Protein backbone atom coordinates (compact mmCIF):
# COMPACT_ATOMS: atom_id res chain seq x y z
CA UNK A 1 0.00 0.00 0.00
CA UNK A 2 2.74 2.41 0.95
CA UNK A 3 4.57 1.44 -2.23
CA UNK A 4 1.51 2.20 -4.36
CA UNK A 5 0.98 5.62 -2.77
CA UNK A 6 4.65 6.50 -3.05
CA UNK A 7 4.73 5.36 -6.69
CA UNK A 8 1.79 7.57 -7.49
CA UNK A 9 3.53 10.55 -5.87
CA UNK A 10 6.73 9.81 -7.80
CA UNK A 11 4.72 9.43 -10.98
CA UNK A 12 3.29 12.94 -10.69
CA UNK A 13 6.67 14.51 -9.89
CA UNK A 14 8.24 12.83 -12.92
CA UNK A 15 5.28 13.81 -15.08
CA UNK A 16 5.63 17.42 -13.96
CA UNK A 17 9.32 17.49 -14.84
CA UNK A 18 8.69 15.76 -18.16
CA UNK A 19 5.95 18.22 -19.13
CA UNK A 20 8.26 21.04 -18.18
CA UNK A 21 10.92 19.60 -20.46
CA UNK A 22 8.32 19.52 -23.23
CA UNK A 23 7.58 23.20 -22.62
CA UNK A 24 4.06 22.56 -21.40
CA UNK A 25 4.32 24.08 -17.95
CA UNK A 26 5.67 27.51 -17.10
CA UNK A 27 8.73 28.18 -15.03
CA UNK A 28 9.66 25.32 -12.72
CA UNK A 29 8.34 25.77 -9.22
CA UNK A 30 11.70 25.25 -7.60
CA UNK A 31 12.14 27.99 -5.00
CA UNK A 32 14.88 30.63 -5.19
CA UNK A 33 18.08 29.86 -7.02
CA UNK A 34 16.56 28.12 -10.02
CA UNK A 35 18.93 25.17 -9.80
CA UNK A 36 16.20 22.80 -11.00
CA UNK A 37 16.51 24.34 -14.43
CA UNK A 38 20.29 24.01 -14.39
CA UNK A 39 19.90 20.29 -13.74
CA UNK A 40 16.97 19.81 -16.09
CA UNK A 41 18.71 21.66 -18.90
CA UNK A 42 22.03 19.86 -18.47
CA UNK A 43 23.14 17.37 -21.07
CA UNK A 44 22.59 14.59 -18.51
CA UNK A 45 18.84 15.24 -18.43
CA UNK A 46 18.35 13.31 -21.68
CA UNK A 47 19.31 9.65 -22.14
CA UNK A 48 18.92 7.96 -25.55
CA UNK A 49 16.85 10.88 -26.75
CA UNK A 50 14.32 10.62 -23.94
CA UNK A 51 14.28 12.98 -20.94
CA UNK A 52 15.28 11.36 -17.65
CA UNK A 53 11.90 12.45 -16.26
CA UNK A 54 10.15 10.27 -18.86
CA UNK A 55 11.99 7.19 -17.53
CA UNK A 56 10.69 8.23 -14.13
CA UNK A 57 7.12 8.41 -15.41
CA UNK A 58 7.28 4.91 -16.91
CA UNK A 59 9.21 3.50 -13.94
CA UNK A 60 6.77 4.82 -11.37
CA UNK A 61 3.82 3.70 -13.50
CA UNK A 62 5.28 0.16 -13.53
CA UNK A 63 5.89 0.27 -9.76
CA UNK A 64 2.31 1.46 -9.22
CA UNK A 65 0.91 -1.32 -11.41
CA UNK A 66 2.96 -4.02 -9.67
CA UNK A 67 2.15 -2.80 -6.19
CA UNK A 68 -1.58 -2.59 -7.00
CA UNK A 69 -1.51 -6.08 -8.53
CA UNK A 70 0.17 -7.40 -5.40
CA UNK A 71 -2.73 -6.12 -3.31
CA UNK A 72 -5.29 -8.17 -5.22
CA UNK A 73 -6.62 -11.15 -3.23
CA UNK A 74 -5.20 -13.82 -5.53
CA UNK A 75 -1.71 -12.32 -5.40
CA UNK A 76 -1.63 -11.32 -1.75
CA UNK A 77 0.06 -14.44 -0.48
CA UNK A 78 2.34 -14.89 -3.49
CA UNK A 79 5.92 -13.76 -3.46
CA UNK A 80 6.23 -12.79 -7.14
CA UNK A 81 4.71 -9.28 -6.97
CA UNK A 82 6.91 -8.38 -4.00
CA UNK A 83 10.00 -9.75 -5.70
CA UNK A 84 9.19 -7.87 -8.89
CA UNK A 85 8.58 -4.71 -6.89
CA UNK A 86 11.89 -5.23 -5.15
CA UNK A 87 13.71 -5.68 -8.46
CA UNK A 88 12.12 -2.59 -10.02
CA UNK A 89 12.76 -0.48 -6.93
CA UNK A 90 16.38 -1.67 -6.74
CA UNK A 91 16.85 -0.68 -10.38
CA UNK A 92 15.22 2.68 -9.64
CA UNK A 93 17.48 3.28 -6.65
CA UNK A 94 20.56 2.44 -8.71
CA UNK A 95 19.47 4.82 -11.49
CA UNK A 96 18.65 7.54 -8.94
CA UNK A 97 21.99 7.05 -7.23
CA UNK A 98 23.70 7.65 -10.56
CA UNK A 99 21.60 10.80 -11.16
CA UNK A 100 22.24 12.11 -7.68
CA UNK A 101 25.95 11.49 -8.15
CA UNK A 102 25.76 13.60 -11.34
CA UNK A 103 23.97 16.38 -9.49
CA UNK A 104 26.50 16.39 -6.67
CA UNK A 105 29.79 16.00 -8.52
CA UNK A 106 29.29 16.75 -12.21
CA UNK A 107 26.52 19.31 -12.65
CA UNK A 108 27.08 20.69 -9.15
CA UNK A 109 23.51 21.84 -8.78
CA UNK A 110 20.62 20.35 -6.88
CA UNK A 111 17.16 19.83 -8.26
CA UNK A 112 14.71 19.72 -5.41
CA UNK A 113 12.16 17.59 -7.25
CA UNK A 114 14.83 15.06 -8.16
CA UNK A 115 15.78 14.75 -4.50
CA UNK A 116 12.14 14.21 -3.52
CA UNK A 117 11.96 11.51 -6.19
CA UNK A 118 15.18 9.95 -4.81
CA UNK A 119 13.63 9.84 -1.32
CA UNK A 120 10.47 8.25 -2.74
CA UNK A 121 12.27 5.48 -4.61
CA UNK A 122 14.35 4.64 -1.53
CA UNK A 123 11.15 4.49 0.54
CA UNK A 124 9.58 2.15 -2.04
CA UNK A 125 12.60 -0.15 -1.81
CA UNK A 126 12.37 -0.14 1.99
CA UNK A 127 8.66 -0.93 1.83
CA UNK A 128 9.30 -3.77 -0.66
CA UNK A 129 11.94 -5.21 1.68
CA UNK A 130 9.52 -4.95 4.59
CA UNK A 131 6.86 -6.70 2.50
CA UNK A 132 9.26 -9.53 1.68
CA UNK A 133 10.17 -9.94 5.33
CA UNK A 134 6.52 -10.11 6.27
CA UNK A 135 5.86 -12.73 3.60
CA UNK A 136 8.75 -14.85 4.94
CA UNK A 137 7.44 -14.56 8.47
CA UNK A 138 3.93 -15.53 7.31
CA UNK A 139 5.43 -18.42 5.34
CA UNK A 140 7.36 -19.79 8.32
CA UNK A 141 4.29 -19.58 10.56
CA UNK A 142 2.01 -21.54 8.25
Amino acid sequence: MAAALLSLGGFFISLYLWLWKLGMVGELACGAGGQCEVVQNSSYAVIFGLPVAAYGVFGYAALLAVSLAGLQPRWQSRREPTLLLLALAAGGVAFTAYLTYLEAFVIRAWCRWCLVSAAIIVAILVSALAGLRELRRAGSQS
Partner: protein
Amino acid sequence: MARVKNLKPFYAVLAVVAVGGAGWIWMAARGGGGAPISAPVDEAAVARAAGFPGYSLGSPDAPVTVIEYADFECPACAQFAILTMHDVKQRLIAAGRVRWQFRDFPLPGHRHSRLAHHAAACADEQGRFWEMHDQLFYGQSTWAAERNPYNRFRDYARAIGLDLARYDECMESARYSARIEASVRDGEQLGVSSTPTFIIGNRRYPGFMAYDALRALIDSAAAASSNR
Protein backbone atom coordinates in the same frame (compact mmCIF):
# COMPACT_ATOMS: atom_id res chain seq x y z
CA MET B 1 2.43 -8.44 0.47
CA ALA B 2 0.65 -8.30 3.78
CA ARG B 3 -2.81 -9.82 3.73
CA VAL B 4 -5.42 -7.07 3.68
CA LYS B 5 -9.14 -7.78 3.56
CA ASN B 6 -10.76 -4.41 3.00
CA LEU B 7 -9.02 -2.34 0.36
CA LYS B 8 -11.71 0.34 0.09
CA PRO B 9 -10.14 2.91 2.45
CA PHE B 10 -6.82 2.44 0.69
CA TYR B 11 -8.37 3.02 -2.72
CA ALA B 12 -10.05 6.15 -1.36
CA VAL B 13 -6.69 7.54 -0.22
CA LEU B 14 -5.12 6.56 -3.54
CA ALA B 15 -7.90 8.34 -5.41
CA VAL B 16 -7.38 11.49 -3.34
CA VAL B 17 -3.66 11.46 -4.15
CA ALA B 18 -4.43 10.85 -7.83
CA VAL B 19 -6.93 13.71 -8.02
CA GLY B 20 -4.59 16.02 -6.10
CA GLY B 21 -1.65 15.16 -8.36
CA ALA B 22 -3.69 15.53 -11.54
CA GLY B 23 -5.00 18.90 -10.31
CA TRP B 24 -1.47 20.07 -9.55
CA ILE B 25 -0.24 19.09 -13.03
CA TRP B 26 -3.26 20.72 -14.63
CA MET B 27 -2.74 23.98 -12.72
CA ALA B 28 0.96 23.98 -13.62
CA ALA B 29 0.19 23.40 -17.30
CA ARG B 30 -2.50 26.06 -17.34
CA GLY B 31 -0.31 28.64 -15.62
CA GLY B 32 2.48 28.11 -18.15
CA GLY B 33 3.84 31.03 -20.11
CA GLY B 34 6.11 32.99 -17.82
CA ALA B 35 3.36 34.70 -15.88
CA PRO B 36 5.33 37.52 -14.21
CA ILE B 37 6.69 38.86 -17.50
CA SER B 38 3.31 38.83 -19.22
CA ALA B 39 1.44 40.20 -16.21
CA PRO B 40 0.06 43.76 -16.36
CA VAL B 41 2.64 46.34 -15.38
CA ASP B 42 2.24 48.92 -12.66
CA GLU B 43 1.66 52.43 -14.13
CA ALA B 44 4.18 54.09 -11.84
CA ALA B 45 6.83 51.59 -12.94
CA VAL B 46 6.06 52.33 -16.61
CA ALA B 47 6.46 56.07 -15.96
CA ARG B 48 9.80 55.45 -14.24
CA ALA B 49 11.00 53.30 -17.14
CA ALA B 50 10.32 56.00 -19.76
CA GLY B 51 13.25 57.52 -21.55
CA PHE B 52 14.93 54.36 -22.84
CA PRO B 53 15.67 55.15 -26.49
CA GLY B 54 15.80 51.53 -27.65
CA TYR B 55 18.63 49.27 -28.72
CA SER B 56 20.90 51.09 -31.09
CA LEU B 57 23.40 50.19 -33.77
CA GLY B 58 25.71 52.50 -35.65
CA SER B 59 27.33 55.86 -35.12
CA PRO B 60 25.47 58.54 -33.15
CA ASP B 61 26.81 61.01 -35.74
CA ALA B 62 25.12 59.28 -38.69
CA PRO B 63 23.02 61.72 -40.76
CA VAL B 64 19.84 59.64 -40.53
CA THR B 65 18.28 57.73 -37.65
CA VAL B 66 15.81 54.96 -38.34
CA ILE B 67 13.58 53.85 -35.51
CA GLU B 68 12.12 50.39 -35.98
CA TYR B 69 9.12 49.43 -33.87
CA ALA B 70 8.97 45.65 -34.02
CA ASP B 71 7.48 42.61 -32.38
CA PHE B 72 9.59 39.45 -32.10
CA GLU B 73 6.55 37.30 -32.81
CA CYS B 74 5.41 39.19 -35.90
CA PRO B 75 6.16 37.32 -39.14
CA ALA B 76 6.73 40.47 -41.22
CA CYS B 77 9.28 41.65 -38.64
CA ALA B 78 11.09 38.32 -38.90
CA GLN B 79 11.01 38.59 -42.67
CA PHE B 80 12.57 42.04 -42.42
CA ALA B 81 15.21 40.85 -39.97
CA ILE B 82 16.12 37.90 -42.17
CA LEU B 83 15.88 39.40 -45.65
CA THR B 84 16.66 43.09 -45.27
CA MET B 85 18.51 43.74 -42.03
CA HIS B 86 21.70 42.00 -43.10
CA ASP B 87 22.15 44.44 -46.01
CA VAL B 88 21.16 47.38 -43.85
CA LYS B 89 23.84 46.49 -41.33
CA GLN B 90 26.57 45.97 -43.87
CA ARG B 91 25.82 48.69 -46.36
CA LEU B 92 24.27 51.46 -44.32
CA ILE B 93 25.00 51.08 -40.63
CA ALA B 94 28.61 49.94 -40.91
CA ALA B 95 29.20 52.69 -43.50
CA GLY B 96 28.12 55.29 -40.96
CA ARG B 97 25.14 56.42 -43.01
CA VAL B 98 22.44 55.30 -40.60
CA ARG B 99 21.94 54.94 -36.91
CA TRP B 100 19.41 52.20 -36.13
CA GLN B 101 17.18 52.09 -33.09
CA PHE B 102 15.15 49.01 -32.35
CA ARG B 103 12.17 49.58 -30.10
CA ASP B 104 9.99 46.99 -28.40
CA PHE B 105 6.44 46.87 -29.66
CA PRO B 106 4.94 43.52 -28.60
CA LEU B 107 1.42 43.32 -29.98
CA PRO B 108 -1.36 42.15 -27.67
CA GLY B 109 -2.39 39.26 -29.92
CA HIS B 110 1.02 37.58 -29.69
CA ARG B 111 1.10 35.37 -26.64
CA HIS B 112 4.87 34.87 -26.32
CA SER B 113 5.95 38.25 -27.53
CA ARG B 114 6.54 39.91 -24.18
CA LEU B 115 8.56 36.94 -23.01
CA ALA B 116 10.69 37.20 -26.16
CA HIS B 117 11.20 40.94 -25.73
CA HIS B 118 12.15 40.35 -22.12
CA ALA B 119 14.66 37.68 -23.12
CA ALA B 120 16.20 40.21 -25.53
CA ALA B 121 16.35 42.84 -22.77
CA CYS B 122 18.13 40.32 -20.52
CA ALA B 123 20.60 39.59 -23.34
CA ASP B 124 21.17 43.35 -23.70
CA GLU B 125 22.15 43.45 -20.04
CA GLN B 126 25.13 41.34 -21.08
CA GLY B 127 25.75 43.33 -24.26
CA ARG B 128 24.25 40.72 -26.62
CA PHE B 129 20.95 42.22 -27.64
CA TRP B 130 21.57 41.90 -31.39
CA GLU B 131 22.67 38.29 -31.11
CA MET B 132 19.44 37.49 -29.26
CA HIS B 133 17.48 39.58 -31.78
CA ASP B 134 18.80 37.30 -34.55
CA GLN B 135 18.13 34.10 -32.61
CA LEU B 136 14.56 35.16 -31.87
CA PHE B 137 13.74 36.17 -35.42
CA TYR B 138 15.45 33.24 -37.11
CA GLY B 139 13.80 30.79 -34.72
CA GLN B 140 10.42 32.54 -34.67
CA SER B 141 8.46 29.89 -36.56
CA THR B 142 9.67 27.27 -34.06
CA TRP B 143 9.03 29.00 -30.76
CA ALA B 144 5.89 30.87 -31.78
CA ALA B 145 4.12 27.52 -32.13
CA GLU B 146 5.24 26.28 -28.72
CA ARG B 147 3.12 26.31 -25.67
CA ASN B 148 5.85 27.86 -23.58
CA PRO B 149 9.12 28.89 -25.23
CA TYR B 150 10.84 29.80 -21.94
CA ASN B 151 13.31 26.94 -22.30
CA ARG B 152 13.96 27.61 -25.96
CA PHE B 153 14.84 31.23 -25.19
CA ARG B 154 17.16 29.93 -22.53
CA ASP B 155 18.78 27.69 -25.14
CA TYR B 156 19.28 30.77 -27.31
CA ALA B 157 20.83 32.56 -24.33
CA ARG B 158 23.25 29.68 -23.96
CA ALA B 159 23.97 29.59 -27.70
CA ILE B 160 24.98 33.26 -27.79
CA GLY B 161 27.21 32.80 -24.76
CA LEU B 162 25.27 34.55 -22.03
CA ASP B 163 26.04 33.96 -18.38
CA LEU B 164 23.00 31.75 -17.72
CA ALA B 165 22.83 32.43 -14.00
CA ARG B 166 22.53 36.16 -14.70
CA TYR B 167 20.09 35.55 -17.53
CA ASP B 168 17.87 33.34 -15.32
CA GLU B 169 17.93 35.90 -12.54
CA CYS B 170 16.98 38.63 -15.02
CA MET B 171 14.09 36.60 -16.47
CA GLU B 172 12.79 35.65 -13.04
CA SER B 173 12.88 39.27 -11.86
CA ALA B 174 10.82 40.45 -14.90
CA ARG B 175 12.59 43.78 -14.38
CA TYR B 176 12.25 44.97 -17.97
CA SER B 177 8.48 44.49 -18.24
CA ALA B 178 7.87 48.14 -17.42
CA ARG B 179 10.50 49.35 -19.89
CA ILE B 180 8.94 47.23 -22.65
CA GLU B 181 5.54 48.69 -21.85
CA ALA B 182 7.00 52.21 -21.86
CA SER B 183 8.37 51.54 -25.32
CA VAL B 184 4.93 50.41 -26.52
CA ARG B 185 3.43 53.66 -25.14
CA ASP B 186 6.08 55.73 -26.95
CA GLY B 187 5.20 53.96 -30.18
CA GLU B 188 1.48 54.51 -29.68
CA GLN B 189 2.11 58.20 -29.14
CA LEU B 190 3.88 58.32 -32.47
CA GLY B 191 0.91 56.63 -34.10
CA VAL B 192 2.42 53.15 -34.41
CA SER B 193 -0.31 50.53 -34.56
CA SER B 194 1.25 47.64 -36.46
CA THR B 195 4.67 46.05 -36.85
CA PRO B 196 7.14 46.60 -38.24
CA THR B 197 6.80 50.37 -38.41
CA PHE B 198 9.82 52.43 -39.39
CA ILE B 199 10.23 56.03 -38.44
CA ILE B 200 12.61 57.82 -40.75
CA GLY B 201 13.03 61.52 -40.17
CA ASN B 202 9.62 62.50 -38.90
CA ARG B 203 7.64 60.13 -41.12
CA ARG B 204 6.10 56.80 -40.32
CA TYR B 205 6.30 53.81 -42.70
CA PRO B 206 4.37 50.72 -41.66
CA GLY B 207 4.99 47.25 -43.07
CA PHE B 208 7.80 45.10 -44.40
CA MET B 209 10.40 46.91 -46.45
CA ALA B 210 12.89 45.60 -48.94
CA TYR B 211 16.41 47.00 -48.92
CA ASP B 212 16.06 49.18 -52.02
CA ALA B 213 12.87 50.86 -50.83
CA LEU B 214 14.36 51.48 -47.41
CA ARG B 215 17.53 52.85 -48.89
CA ALA B 216 15.61 55.26 -51.12
CA LEU B 217 13.79 56.62 -48.07
CA ILE B 218 17.02 56.94 -46.13
CA ASP B 219 18.70 58.75 -49.02
CA SER B 220 15.89 61.23 -49.30
CA ALA B 221 15.91 61.81 -45.53
CA ALA B 222 19.67 62.39 -45.70
CA ALA B 223 19.24 64.84 -48.57
CA ALA B 224 16.50 66.68 -46.68
CA SER B 225 18.64 66.98 -43.55
CA SER B 226 21.67 68.26 -45.48
CA ASN B 227 19.55 70.88 -47.25
CA ARG B 228 18.25 72.18 -43.99
